Protein backbone atom coordinates (compact mmCIF):
# COMPACT_ATOMS: atom_id res chain seq x y z
CA UNK A 1 0.00 0.00 0.00
CA UNK A 2 2.32 2.75 -1.22
CA UNK A 3 -0.70 5.06 -1.23
CA UNK A 4 -0.20 5.47 2.52
CA UNK A 5 3.38 6.71 2.13
CA UNK A 6 2.35 8.92 -0.76
CA UNK A 7 -0.51 10.36 1.29
CA UNK A 8 1.90 11.09 4.15
CA UNK A 9 4.17 12.97 1.75
CA UNK A 10 1.27 14.94 0.29
CA UNK A 11 0.11 15.96 3.76
CA UNK A 12 3.66 16.94 4.73
CA UNK A 13 4.19 19.01 1.56
CA UNK A 14 0.82 20.72 1.99
CA UNK A 15 1.48 21.38 5.67
CA UNK A 16 4.90 22.89 4.89
CA UNK A 17 3.35 25.33 2.44
CA UNK A 18 0.37 26.26 4.58
CA UNK A 19 2.30 28.29 7.15
CA UNK A 20 -0.21 27.48 9.85
CA UNK A 21 -3.30 28.27 7.80
CA UNK A 22 -6.02 25.69 7.45
CA UNK A 23 -5.87 23.83 4.15
CA UNK A 24 -9.24 23.16 2.50
CA UNK A 25 -8.23 21.56 -0.78
CA UNK A 26 -5.08 19.95 -2.18
CA UNK A 27 -4.60 19.59 -5.94
CA UNK A 28 -2.42 16.61 -6.86
CA UNK A 29 -1.32 15.39 -10.28
CA UNK A 30 -0.80 11.62 -10.61
CA UNK A 31 0.59 9.99 -13.74
CA UNK A 32 -0.87 6.66 -14.79
CA UNK A 33 2.53 4.98 -14.61
CA UNK A 34 2.57 5.54 -10.85
CA UNK A 35 -0.01 2.82 -10.30
CA UNK A 36 -1.78 4.78 -7.62
CA UNK A 37 -5.26 3.56 -6.72
CA UNK A 38 -7.27 6.80 -6.35
CA UNK A 39 -9.72 5.46 -3.76
CA UNK A 40 -6.87 4.07 -1.65
CA UNK A 41 -5.04 7.38 -1.85
CA UNK A 42 -8.15 9.36 -0.86
CA UNK A 43 -8.75 7.04 2.08
CA UNK A 44 -5.11 7.23 3.23
CA UNK A 45 -5.09 11.00 2.81
CA UNK A 46 -8.10 11.45 5.07
CA UNK A 47 -6.50 9.19 7.65
CA UNK A 48 -3.06 10.78 7.82
CA UNK A 49 -4.38 14.34 7.58
CA UNK A 50 -6.03 14.00 10.97
CA UNK A 51 -4.46 16.26 13.56
CA UNK A 52 -2.60 18.32 10.92
CA UNK A 53 -3.44 21.68 9.28
CA UNK A 54 -4.66 19.57 6.36
CA UNK A 55 -7.34 17.74 8.34
CA UNK A 56 -10.67 17.71 6.53
CA UNK A 57 -9.18 19.05 3.29
CA UNK A 58 -10.49 17.74 0.00
CA UNK A 59 -8.07 15.87 -2.23
CA UNK A 60 -8.45 16.81 -5.89
CA UNK A 61 -6.68 14.22 -8.02
CA UNK A 62 -5.86 14.89 -11.63
CA UNK A 63 -4.90 11.70 -13.42
CA UNK A 64 -2.41 12.16 -16.23
CA UNK A 65 -2.44 9.67 -19.11
CA UNK A 66 0.81 8.37 -20.58
CA UNK A 67 2.36 10.31 -23.43
CA UNK A 68 5.62 9.16 -24.97
CA UNK A 69 7.87 10.37 -27.78
CA UNK A 70 9.37 7.78 -30.12
CA UNK A 71 13.16 7.83 -30.39
CA UNK A 72 12.96 6.15 -33.81
CA UNK A 73 10.47 8.27 -35.71
CA UNK A 74 9.89 11.22 -33.39
CA UNK A 75 6.11 10.84 -33.22
CA UNK A 76 4.38 11.49 -29.90
CA UNK A 77 1.77 8.91 -28.83
CA UNK A 78 -0.92 8.87 -26.18
CA UNK A 79 -0.82 5.37 -24.66
CA UNK A 80 -3.55 3.67 -22.67
CA UNK A 81 -2.07 0.26 -21.93
CA UNK A 82 1.02 -1.91 -21.99
CA UNK A 83 3.02 -2.65 -24.03
CA UNK A 84 4.04 0.94 -24.57
CA UNK A 85 4.63 1.10 -28.32
CA UNK A 86 4.82 4.01 -30.73
CA UNK A 87 1.42 4.49 -32.41
CA UNK A 88 3.16 5.36 -35.66
CA UNK A 89 6.01 2.86 -36.16
CA UNK A 90 5.54 0.35 -33.33
CA UNK A 91 8.94 0.95 -31.72
CA UNK A 92 9.34 0.27 -27.99
CA UNK A 93 12.17 2.80 -27.74
CA UNK A 94 10.14 5.61 -26.19
CA UNK A 95 10.84 8.53 -23.93
CA UNK A 96 8.06 9.13 -21.41
CA UNK A 97 6.86 12.73 -21.72
CA UNK A 98 3.92 12.57 -19.32
CA UNK A 99 2.48 9.94 -17.03
CA UNK A 100 5.13 9.72 -14.32
CA UNK A 101 3.96 12.79 -12.37
CA UNK A 102 3.40 12.65 -8.64
CA UNK A 103 3.13 16.26 -7.73
CA UNK A 104 1.37 18.60 -5.33
CA UNK A 105 0.27 21.34 -7.70
CA UNK A 106 -1.51 23.81 -5.47
CA UNK A 107 -3.46 24.35 -2.26
CA UNK A 108 -6.58 26.17 -1.26
CA UNK A 109 -6.42 27.62 2.21
CA UNK A 110 -8.41 29.86 4.48
CA UNK A 111 -7.15 33.38 4.79
CA UNK A 112 -5.08 33.72 7.94
Amino acid sequence: MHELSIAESIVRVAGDHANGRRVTKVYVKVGHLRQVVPSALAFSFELVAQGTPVEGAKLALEEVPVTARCRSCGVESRLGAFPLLCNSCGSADLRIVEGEELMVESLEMEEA
Partner: protein
Amino acid sequence: MHRTAVKKVVMESVLDANDALAQANRDRFDTAGNYVINMMSSPGAGKTALLERTLEKLRGKLRLGVLEGDVQTTLDADRLARFHVPLVQVNTDPGFGGECHLDANMVRSGLTELPLDDIDVLVIENVGNLVCPAEFKVGEDARVMVYSVTEGEEKPLKYPLMFRSADLVLVNKVDLLQHLDFDLDLFLANLDAVNPGVERILTSARTGKGVDEWCSWLQSRKPLS
Protein backbone atom coordinates in the same frame (compact mmCIF):
# COMPACT_ATOMS: atom_id res chain seq x y z
CA MET B 1 -15.72 36.94 10.49
CA HIS B 2 -15.80 36.13 6.83
CA ARG B 3 -12.94 33.95 5.59
CA THR B 4 -11.98 33.93 1.94
CA ALA B 5 -10.12 31.07 0.36
CA VAL B 6 -6.66 31.70 -1.04
CA LYS B 7 -4.92 29.51 -3.56
CA LYS B 8 -1.21 28.84 -3.45
CA VAL B 9 0.79 27.24 -6.23
CA VAL B 10 3.12 24.57 -4.86
CA MET B 11 4.44 22.37 -7.69
CA GLU B 12 6.44 20.08 -5.43
CA SER B 13 7.09 16.46 -6.31
CA VAL B 14 5.69 14.16 -3.66
CA LEU B 15 8.84 12.04 -3.68
CA ASP B 16 11.33 14.92 -3.46
CA ALA B 17 12.08 14.34 0.21
CA ASN B 18 12.77 10.64 -0.32
CA ASP B 19 14.84 11.33 -3.44
CA ALA B 20 16.99 13.82 -1.54
CA LEU B 21 17.66 11.27 1.20
CA ALA B 22 18.39 8.62 -1.43
CA GLN B 23 20.98 10.94 -2.95
CA ALA B 24 22.56 11.41 0.48
CA ASN B 25 22.80 7.61 0.82
CA ARG B 26 24.25 7.48 -2.69
CA ASP B 27 26.97 9.94 -1.69
CA ARG B 28 27.91 7.80 1.30
CA PHE B 29 28.08 4.68 -0.87
CA ASP B 30 30.29 6.48 -3.38
CA THR B 31 32.64 7.65 -0.66
CA ALA B 32 32.93 4.12 0.74
CA GLY B 33 33.22 2.57 -2.74
CA ASN B 34 30.09 0.41 -2.56
CA TYR B 35 28.05 -0.90 -5.44
CA VAL B 36 24.50 -1.10 -4.16
CA ILE B 37 21.72 -3.39 -5.29
CA ASN B 38 18.07 -2.92 -4.43
CA MET B 39 16.60 -6.41 -4.55
CA MET B 40 12.84 -6.58 -4.91
CA SER B 41 10.16 -9.22 -5.33
CA SER B 42 6.75 -10.46 -4.26
CA PRO B 43 6.58 -12.21 -0.90
CA GLY B 44 7.80 -15.78 -1.26
CA ALA B 45 9.61 -15.36 -4.58
CA GLY B 46 12.72 -16.84 -2.99
CA LYS B 47 14.95 -13.78 -2.46
CA THR B 48 16.42 -15.03 0.79
CA ALA B 49 17.09 -18.56 -0.49
CA LEU B 50 18.84 -17.09 -3.50
CA LEU B 51 20.87 -14.82 -1.27
CA GLU B 52 21.93 -17.82 0.83
CA ARG B 53 23.26 -19.49 -2.32
CA THR B 54 24.95 -16.27 -3.34
CA LEU B 55 26.71 -15.70 -0.02
CA GLU B 56 27.87 -19.30 -0.01
CA LYS B 57 29.27 -19.05 -3.53
CA LEU B 58 30.97 -15.70 -3.20
CA ARG B 59 32.49 -16.26 0.22
CA GLY B 60 36.11 -15.10 0.01
CA LYS B 61 35.63 -13.79 -3.53
CA LEU B 62 33.57 -10.67 -3.05
CA ARG B 63 33.03 -8.61 0.06
CA LEU B 64 29.26 -8.61 0.28
CA GLY B 65 27.08 -6.87 2.82
CA VAL B 66 23.35 -7.23 3.35
CA LEU B 67 20.74 -4.79 4.54
CA GLU B 68 17.61 -6.73 5.23
CA GLY B 69 14.20 -5.06 5.19
CA ASP B 70 11.52 -6.94 6.99
CA VAL B 71 8.16 -6.48 8.62
CA GLN B 72 8.79 -7.04 12.32
CA THR B 73 10.58 -10.37 12.28
CA THR B 74 14.20 -11.41 12.27
CA LEU B 75 13.62 -14.67 10.43
CA ASP B 76 15.38 -13.80 7.18
CA ALA B 77 18.32 -12.24 8.97
CA ASP B 78 18.72 -15.38 11.10
CA ARG B 79 18.98 -17.47 7.96
CA LEU B 80 21.77 -15.28 6.61
CA ALA B 81 23.70 -14.78 9.86
CA ARG B 82 25.65 -18.04 9.48
CA PHE B 83 27.55 -16.63 6.50
CA HIS B 84 29.28 -14.07 8.71
CA VAL B 85 28.90 -11.19 6.31
CA PRO B 86 28.10 -7.69 7.56
CA LEU B 87 24.37 -7.80 8.02
CA VAL B 88 21.82 -5.42 9.43
CA GLN B 89 18.09 -5.78 9.69
CA VAL B 90 15.75 -2.84 9.35
CA ASN B 91 12.28 -3.51 10.63
CA THR B 92 9.85 -1.30 8.82
CA ASP B 93 7.46 1.04 10.54
CA PRO B 94 4.80 -0.97 12.38
CA GLY B 95 2.33 1.95 12.24
CA PHE B 96 -0.38 0.39 10.10
CA GLY B 97 0.53 -3.25 10.32
CA GLY B 98 3.98 -2.70 8.86
CA GLU B 99 5.20 -0.69 5.92
CA CYS B 100 5.42 -2.62 2.70
CA HIS B 101 8.68 -1.14 1.44
CA LEU B 102 11.99 0.35 2.45
CA ASP B 103 12.42 4.04 1.86
CA ALA B 104 15.64 6.05 1.81
CA ASN B 105 15.32 7.07 5.44
CA MET B 106 14.88 3.50 6.69
CA VAL B 107 17.96 2.45 4.73
CA ARG B 108 19.89 5.39 6.14
CA SER B 109 19.02 4.29 9.67
CA GLY B 110 20.52 0.86 8.97
CA LEU B 111 23.75 2.12 7.43
CA THR B 112 25.24 3.24 10.72
CA GLU B 113 25.53 -0.41 11.71
CA LEU B 114 27.35 -1.55 8.58
CA PRO B 115 31.12 -1.28 8.00
CA LEU B 116 30.67 0.28 4.56
CA ASP B 117 34.40 0.64 3.97
CA ASP B 118 34.78 -3.14 4.11
CA ILE B 119 32.01 -3.87 1.59
CA ASP B 120 32.29 -4.11 -2.21
CA VAL B 121 28.69 -4.90 -3.02
CA LEU B 122 25.82 -4.11 -0.68
CA VAL B 123 22.60 -6.00 -1.28
CA ILE B 124 19.49 -4.32 0.08
CA GLU B 125 16.82 -6.97 0.39
CA ASN B 126 13.60 -5.01 0.15
CA VAL B 127 10.29 -6.00 1.72
CA GLY B 128 8.39 -8.62 -0.27
CA ASN B 129 5.83 -6.62 -2.25
CA LEU B 130 5.26 -6.23 -5.96
CA VAL B 131 4.22 -2.58 -6.06
CA CYS B 132 5.42 -0.32 -3.28
CA PRO B 133 9.23 -0.77 -3.18
CA ALA B 134 9.52 0.33 -6.81
CA GLU B 135 8.34 3.82 -5.91
CA PHE B 136 11.10 4.59 -3.43
CA LYS B 137 14.73 5.07 -4.40
CA VAL B 138 17.10 4.21 -1.58
CA GLY B 139 20.39 5.24 -3.23
CA GLU B 140 20.97 2.06 -5.24
CA ASP B 141 23.06 1.60 -8.39
CA ALA B 142 20.89 -1.17 -9.77
CA ARG B 143 17.54 -2.80 -9.20
CA VAL B 144 17.38 -6.56 -9.31
CA MET B 145 13.99 -8.18 -9.32
CA VAL B 146 13.43 -11.78 -8.27
CA TYR B 147 10.40 -13.28 -9.93
CA SER B 148 9.10 -16.76 -9.23
CA VAL B 149 7.61 -18.81 -12.05
CA THR B 150 4.84 -19.75 -9.60
CA GLU B 151 3.52 -16.19 -9.96
CA GLY B 152 2.16 -16.69 -13.47
CA GLU B 153 2.89 -14.99 -16.80
CA GLU B 154 0.68 -11.91 -16.45
CA LYS B 155 2.26 -10.01 -13.57
CA PRO B 156 4.47 -7.74 -15.72
CA LEU B 157 1.34 -6.40 -17.41
CA LYS B 158 -0.61 -6.04 -14.16
CA TYR B 159 2.20 -4.56 -12.05
CA PRO B 160 4.47 -2.84 -14.58
CA LEU B 161 5.97 -0.33 -12.16
CA MET B 162 8.54 -2.67 -10.66
CA PHE B 163 9.24 -4.61 -13.86
CA ARG B 164 9.85 -1.34 -15.70
CA SER B 165 12.38 -0.14 -13.15
CA ALA B 166 14.41 -3.40 -12.98
CA ASP B 167 17.93 -3.58 -14.42
CA LEU B 168 18.05 -7.36 -14.07
CA VAL B 169 15.30 -9.93 -13.57
CA LEU B 170 16.12 -13.24 -11.91
CA VAL B 171 13.44 -15.68 -13.07
CA ASN B 172 13.52 -17.96 -10.06
CA LYS B 173 12.31 -21.45 -9.14
CA VAL B 174 12.76 -22.68 -12.72
CA ASP B 175 13.23 -26.20 -11.28
CA LEU B 176 9.42 -26.16 -10.86
CA LEU B 177 8.72 -25.43 -14.54
CA GLN B 178 8.13 -29.07 -15.38
CA HIS B 179 5.35 -29.22 -12.77
CA LEU B 180 3.70 -25.94 -13.63
CA ASP B 181 1.42 -24.64 -16.31
CA PHE B 182 3.75 -21.69 -16.83
CA ASP B 183 4.58 -20.44 -20.33
CA LEU B 184 8.11 -19.07 -20.00
CA ASP B 185 8.14 -17.55 -23.50
CA LEU B 186 4.89 -15.75 -22.82
CA PHE B 187 6.25 -14.40 -19.53
CA LEU B 188 9.43 -13.16 -21.22
CA ALA B 189 7.34 -11.53 -23.96
CA ASN B 190 5.28 -9.77 -21.29
CA LEU B 191 8.49 -8.70 -19.55
CA ASP B 192 9.83 -7.27 -22.82
CA ALA B 193 6.55 -5.47 -23.36
CA VAL B 194 7.08 -3.35 -20.25
CA ASN B 195 10.90 -3.30 -20.15
CA PRO B 196 12.26 -4.08 -23.63
CA GLY B 197 15.47 -6.10 -23.60
CA VAL B 198 15.97 -6.06 -19.83
CA GLU B 199 18.69 -8.50 -18.69
CA ARG B 200 17.36 -11.76 -17.30
CA ILE B 201 18.84 -14.90 -15.76
CA LEU B 202 16.94 -18.13 -15.14
CA THR B 203 17.70 -19.32 -11.62
CA SER B 204 16.83 -21.96 -9.08
CA ALA B 205 17.98 -21.59 -5.50
CA ARG B 206 17.13 -25.26 -5.02
CA THR B 207 19.20 -26.80 -7.82
CA GLY B 208 21.70 -23.95 -8.12
CA LYS B 209 20.87 -23.32 -11.76
CA GLY B 210 21.87 -19.85 -12.90
CA VAL B 211 23.53 -19.04 -9.59
CA ASP B 212 26.99 -18.97 -11.21
CA GLU B 213 25.79 -16.56 -13.85
CA TRP B 214 24.13 -14.35 -11.25
CA CYS B 215 27.27 -14.40 -9.11
CA SER B 216 29.38 -13.43 -12.13
CA TRP B 217 27.00 -10.57 -12.77
CA LEU B 218 27.51 -9.45 -9.17
CA GLN B 219 31.30 -9.80 -9.38
CA SER B 220 31.36 -7.71 -12.55
CA ARG B 221 29.74 -4.93 -10.53
CA LYS B 222 32.54 -4.63 -8.00
CA PRO B 223 33.68 -1.02 -8.14
CA LEU B 224 37.21 -0.51 -9.46
CA SER B 225 39.44 0.47 -6.61
